[in-house]
């Protein structure tokens, strides 16, 4: 078990190292470089000054040399300064990370609270009209563009009904906890609705697998009541694959959070990455993207290990299976 966890952890580290290089190279391919931005802000600077600055900051070095220098600094805990915010990157990133985790956490809990009963019901009555209806609703759910869903929710609840604010975190104009909570409702609702269809499909698939097992027939033969058979016999076994599927969806969830945050002016990490890429805030974009990658890798790692821990049939041997 420990060997398995360590092995998977090492693999994740290798993926992270590769990703950091790819992202570093991509950020370097964005238009302009920090010196160009200095140049455009200061007409006094000559091109000789620019060359001197490039040499000073090592921007004239080959990509690999620059990457290694950056990676060394980052490993030592120096992530650089944000160009736009003029503070160390982590100072601006951490509060945003908390906001995003709050948004994602609330959405996942709510989405599961809706998806589990729906998925179990659909699996228990597979082939029925109810199952067909839930299936169609799931098709709609995975096909709706998340930003359009957000627009529709804003139109309904902020414009037509006027119940909720259309955007913002409530951080600036906050008049207390209640107001902040009101600002959270629509973003959380958007992300919840965007995830619920996928989760319902996962629940249904996991439950269908368990319902086809022999022990379910035995339970029925012994006269176990259907609800008890569903929830006490099948459901606990269905949770292991479900946890894995939900954890593997973390990347998609983060993408959804980026859209949601942008739509509602919510001060989260996804929006920060978007703003920093468009605003040529190289250090911030780089660390933000890598942090998002780290979170995804951790979620995947947790899924692998949780699955192996929950299901004794999973072998910890590695390699092609």
């Amino acid at each position, binding site marked *: 078990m420990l060997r398995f966890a360590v092995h998977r952890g090492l*693999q994740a580290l290798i*993926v992270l190292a590769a*990703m950091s290089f790819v*992202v570093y190279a*991509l*950020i*370097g*391919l*964005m*238009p*302009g470089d920090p010196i160009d931005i200095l140049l455009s802000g200061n007409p006094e600077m000559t091109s000789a000054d620019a060359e001197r600055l490039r040499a000073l900051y090592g921007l004239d070095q080959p990509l690999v040399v620059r990457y290694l220098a950056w990676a060394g600094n980052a490993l030592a805990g120096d992530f650089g300064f944000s160009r736009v915010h003029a503070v160390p990157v982590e100072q601006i990133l951490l509060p945003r990370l908390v906001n995003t985790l709050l948004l994602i956490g609330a959405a996942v809990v709510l989405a599961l609270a809706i998806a589990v009963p729906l998925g179990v019901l659909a699996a228990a009555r597979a082939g029925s009209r109810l199952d067909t209806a839930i*299936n*169609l609703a*799931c*098709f*709609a759910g*995975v*096909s*709706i*563009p998340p*930003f*359009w869903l957000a*627009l*529709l929710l*804003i*139109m309904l609840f902020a*414009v037509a009904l006027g119940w909720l604010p259309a955007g913002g975190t409530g951080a600036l104009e906050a008049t207390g906890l209640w107001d902040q909570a009101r600002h959270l409702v629509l973003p959380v609702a958007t992300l919840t609705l965007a995830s619920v269809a*996928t989760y319902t*499909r*996962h629940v*249904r*698939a996991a439950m*269908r697998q368990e319902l086809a097992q022999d022990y379910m027939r035995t339970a029925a033969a012994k006269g176990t009541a259907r609800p008890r058979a569903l929830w006490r016999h099948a459901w606990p076994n269905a949770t292991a694959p479900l946890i894995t599927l939900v954890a*593997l969806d*973390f*990347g*998609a969830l*983060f*993408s959804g959070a*980026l*859209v949601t945050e*942008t*739509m509602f002016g919510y001060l989260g990490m*996804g929006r920060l*990455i*978007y703003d920093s*890429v*468009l605003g040529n805030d190289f250090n911030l*974009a780089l660390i*933000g*993207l890598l942090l*998002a*990658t780290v*979170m*995804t*890798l951790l*979620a*995947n790692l947790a899924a692998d290990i949780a699955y192996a821990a929950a299901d004794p049939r999973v072998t910890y041997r590695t*390699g*092609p299976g």
Partner: protein
Amino acid sequence: MTTGGPRRRHLGLPAAIAAAVLAGLAVAAAAAPLVAALLGHDPAGVDLLNRAAPPSPAHPLGTDELGRDLLVRLLYGGRVSLTVAVAAAAGAALIGTVIGLAAGYFAGRTDAALMRVTDAVIALPLLPLLIVLSAVDPAKVWGGLEGDPGGGLGRIILIVALVGWTTVARLVRAATLSVRQRDYVRAARALGTGHLAIMVRHILPNVASPVIVATTLAVGQVILLESVLSFLGVGIQPPAASWGNMLTNAQELIWTAPRLAVMPGALIFVTVIACNLLGDGLLNAYDPRLGGNARRPA
């Protein structure tokens, strides 16, 4: 022919409706110049005195925030969105088929490595990465290749194809694994046929069904990705219209002209759900065991 012998099944009602809807949308988009000529509007024809006008005989669906005819722009936007979708899905199908074939045919370590890469791509937070990819300066990659006439059409097709191949790869791999030990493949191998020839001539025709299914599903996936990127301002660039970028300014207009926010999004939604239903129907017809909830788009 499919992997388990011929197994003809009906497509099912939802998939048939979806196919009809998609055909209708394609025809409408193809007829965009015709409609524009009939109505006498240019898709980029700004009319500042007639902004966000309600529907009228001259403008059947009204005008947008710059006074451009909404119907004509929706049709032209459909041309762009559908072109991107089909081209990128074809590109994704090509990449996915190559990877899936190689993984399934060679099996073992090659399979493990390729599928690990596929899993990694699926798990990544794709949207932030795509935003960075869209921001990449083509001049720094190809050395001064400037000016993309289609408002970023080529770039978005390339970017989306680069991440959209995973569903195809998985389905093709599964199908390839199930035929790689068939007698005709072994016979070809015994006759000394090379790996490449076996894959192309003997395996590929037998995994054509999953390729078609996965490509259909990929079209829906690609339309969603393109619309999000265009909406965020890093996809198709105005004045070229796409369903996604027509919604970019819609958020400021929901108080005055909610119509403008509803229609492009509704078209994206209808197109994507049609692709997903059609893909699901094709998958069911090809292999009933995989139908229903076996995979998910986006």
